[in-house]
């Protein structure tokens, strides 16, 4: 440390040059020390986390809040617990960390999300004829909870879990997508995308339960032909059910059909 911080005159100039250099080198030393300290801390943390995940694998599996927090923490430090090689954040240290994570978390958490994803795909297939390939995440959760097997057999499954499980399917293609409709989130399992008019009508249905052509005309300011065309599309895609016993034909979203 320079004793003469505030040198004056020419000596000050050379002093400051020297201190700048010294600071620069010092800064570099600090940085490399920090990096080393950080790497050490990280490996200590990894080891602790490894032990933690082994002893708490059961909790990770069975406690949805715990699981969500765990996943959030992983994300925060730049690691995706589901896909060991798919790593966000700085390349250097995390590159190595990523693959170690996959081993660390290993079977328990991965199995859970994998089984959940399989179950989600099954339910989509089972319900496709009823809902045209659009099912609310909340309905999916209810159906899974009622089911049998490892998933649903007493293990709490949350909407968050379902969405994470679906994300893990993304690399496989297969066209499963989360579609927000109004305040709800839906899983779309058919390739056909909804156009804006169709989404709008489905959103209105989420709120009102059902629509009629007149309601669409009145509330959205659509011409009759347009309203009819959109409704026909939705019926053709088996996305809505028809009730012809009302004063005016009503079109219902199947989402409410099995609500307890």
């Amino acid at each position, binding site marked *: 440390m320079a004793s003469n911080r505030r040198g004056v005159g020419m000596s000050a100039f050379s002093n400051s040059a020297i201190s700048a250099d010294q600071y620069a080198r010092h800064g570099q030393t600090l940085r490399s020390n920090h990096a080393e300290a950080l790497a050490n801390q990280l490996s200590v943390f990894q080891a602790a986390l490894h032990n933690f995940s082994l002893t708490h694998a059961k909790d990770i599996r069975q406690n949805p809040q715990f699981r969500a927090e765990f996943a959030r923490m992983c994300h925060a430090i730049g690691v995706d617990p589901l896909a060991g090689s798919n790593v966000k954040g700085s390349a250097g240290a995390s590159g190595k960390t990523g693959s170690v994570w996959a081993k660390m978390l290993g079977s328990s958490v991965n199995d859970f999300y994998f089984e959940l994803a399989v179950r989600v795909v099954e339910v989509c297939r*089972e319900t496709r*004829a*009823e809902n*045209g390939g659009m099912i609310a995440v909340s309905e999916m959760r209810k159906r899974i909870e009622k089911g*049998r097997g490892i998933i649903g057999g007493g293990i709490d499954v949350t909407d968050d879990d379902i969405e994470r499980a679906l994300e893990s399917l993304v690399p496989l293609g297969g066209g499963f997508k989360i579609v927000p409709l109004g305040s709800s989130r839906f899983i779309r399992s058919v390739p056909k995308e909804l156009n804006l008019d169709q989404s709008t009508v489905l959103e209105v249905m989420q709120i009102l339960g*059902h629509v009629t052509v007149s309601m669409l005309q009145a509330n959205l300011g659509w011409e009759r032909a347009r309203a009819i065309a959109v409704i026909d599309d939705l*019926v*053709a895609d*088996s996305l809505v*059910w*028809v*009730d*012809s*016993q*009302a004063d005016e034909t*009503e079109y*219902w979203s199947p989402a*409410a*059909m*099995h*609500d*307890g």
Partner: protein
Amino acid sequence: MASSSSSPAPPTLTSAYAAPPPTSISSQIASTTFTFPTYTSFPPFYTLQPNLTTRARQLTLWSNLLTTYCAHHRLFKLSLSFLPANLFANPSIHRTLSQPDIRTVLDHLALPANGGRVEWIPTSSRSEKPNSCWVYWRTPAEWADAIYGWVDETGQKGAVLTVYEIREGEAVQSQEWRGMDEELLRKVLSVLVKRGKAQIFGQEETAGVKFF
């Protein structure tokens, strides 16, 4: 699946037209109020859906409703002139499946491909459309298994039982087939006869049945 098994079999998800799981009679009688599934409060359920994919699903739901309702109330037969008030209608939402649509649903369910859970009972005149049908919440083959299983388990092979005993006897009070229409029971027994498991002699209700 024979006699009164107290642990229900898990529902088969693979069959769209699976029958309700076997439960003992006592548990059915105890809860005399049938719990209608939520979809019976869904107005479109009572309109035959124009989209065929949706309709296929709708008909599956009708099949499930029909078989579980009839199993609960132990109805073996439906007559279109005297239908239970709340089976094909939900008065609280003012919706009814129309008579022609009821027939369409029953026709659909009568097809073997759809589970064959309904069988029209032929009328005396060929030109008339049948007005009543059996509802097979258990198929005749399943009934045959159940009855034969009961005979076997109760050590009654070789004994002679009357048709009346099998339908209404004290020994069958807790069996699912208690009170079965005689005509249906004879159908079931003839399945066993064809399998070589039973023989019927005599006529009417005093007819005797021997099981092998």
